[in-house]
């Protein structure tokens, strides 16, 4: 059916925990209840995430990337009633985005000039090598690992990803993270623990898929 969002089966295993699923279901419930902050939370996290995903595959076509992402996000919002939380929300967006990209090239009667993730990694390594020299294999692995870490963060519920970035990249304290999430320090600590476990699980599974 045209416009139908298909959740890709194998990715359901990326659902890491009951808590992560409940986080996303809660976000979707708040969005469906018309809560402005829930929409902003969704937009802050998922639009850049799906943009990164689309931009990786449509390199050199910023206008098309923008159109595809806009169409993806709008369609997912239109069909939010159908979200049951079996798979991470990002996977839903990801599946829709893939359909949008495929649909675009089908309509245009052309083949997508996708940049394969491996090819992209290779290019990054080559580019880095050209500039500074070094071990190509190590650079390749490093670039691949960076992509996987970023992809893993994109797969997490928004609050999980933000909490991890605040703690490990910005060095914020649990008290500060609690203040930003509007929860007690104890609840923030608990959320960080769940976020770390979800991160580890998704990262490991993405690593396995990538081998």
């Amino acid at each position, binding site marked *: 059916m045209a416009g139908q969002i298909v959740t890709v089966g194998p990715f359901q295993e990326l659902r890491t925990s009951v808590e992560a699923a409940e986080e996303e279901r809660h976000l979707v419930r708040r*969005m469906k209840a*018309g809560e*402005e902050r829930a929409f902003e939370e969704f937009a802050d996290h998922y639009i850049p995430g799906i*943009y990164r995903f689309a931009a990786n595959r449509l390199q050199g076509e910023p206008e098309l990337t923008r159109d595809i992402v806009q169409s993806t996000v709008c369609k997912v*919002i239109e069909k939010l009633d159908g979200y049951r939380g079996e798979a991470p929300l990002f996977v839903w967006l990801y599946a829709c985005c893939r359909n949008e990209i495929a649909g675009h090239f089908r309509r245009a009667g052309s083949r997508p000039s996708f940049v394969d993730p491996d090819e992209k990694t290779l290019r990054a390594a080559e580019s880095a090598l050209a500039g500074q020299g070094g071990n190509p294999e190590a650079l390749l692995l490093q670039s691949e*690992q960076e992509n996987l870490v970023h992809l893993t963060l994109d797969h997490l519920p928004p609050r999980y990803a933000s909490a*991890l970035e605040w703690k490990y990249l910005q060095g914020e304290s649990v008290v500060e993270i609690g203040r930003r999430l509007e929860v007690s320090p104890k609840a923030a600590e608990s959320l960080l623990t769940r976020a*770390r476990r979800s991160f580890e699980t998704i*990262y490991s599974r993405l690593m396995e898929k990538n081998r």
Partner: protein
Amino acid sequence: MKDETTDRDEDESTRELLQAAGPRPSMPLDVLEAIRNEARAVWRARFVTEPGTRARWRWMMPLAAAVCAAAFLGWWFVGRTSEDAIVAVVARVESSRGASGFSAGQPLLAGATIETADHAWLALSLAGGQSLRLDEGTKVTLISVDSVSLERGGVYLDSLHGVPVTIATVAGDFVPAGTQFELRLVGDAVQLRVREGQVALKQRRGGSEPAVARAGQQLIVRQDGTLHRDQIGRSDADWDWILAVIRVPEIEGRTLQSFLDWMARERGWSVEFGSSEAARLSREVILHGSVSEMSPDDALNTVMLSSGFTHQVSNGTLVVSRP
């Protein structure tokens, strides 16, 4: 069950991975804001009911029920079909020449013909949640909840909230898709100006395929069915008449961002922020008080001043900064 050692291990491995990878690449801010605005419009249309509309229709429920009951009884006793459904309510009246014959809150039934005199403008809230505005010297018939006939003058339809409303004219039926547009009878021609989204014309004569006009386009349909296309501005002075009958919404408890979105939509502007910090703060600042009795320009100036932001409008873009 995981113990403290495992927690520490997880903490360290997560730290190492995140720090080695660094922050996620950001996307261009203007692209993010543009997509966010489109997505927000879809989200609002799908899940948010305008507070004013909700209140009005809650107030109207007993009356609507009474009308439905009356219609049923009429059909039962005299064999009439039930057409007496409320399809719109008068939202605002502006008349510089005294009484217009309408008052805010007045219900309008299917089949009602509405006329505005010179120097009188009318805004209707349709039952499906759309806003229909009538310019001076206009005549329309409200056929049903999703169909209006334009017989004289010009109308502006904003169907962000609610299902599309088809507008029938001598030239054909204009079917919008999530849009803002103006339709005007000019002599023997029909002029369509699309501000947002797109509108399809199903012509009464000729043209088996619907003609489609998109945002920023004008389509003139002549009596012989010929079409003439042109480009138009989304915020030029030709749109100003629609501001005569808008009421600034209540802002209490709303974010600055949502107020700016409303203002930009009414004026045909796009919104840009001077910095990512200003964009973030606009989503966090909660407004209090009321500016609903002010003109749109006064309301904007008041809100910006009181919330500590500055703004300027340049080439159809509202640029918002935080000094």
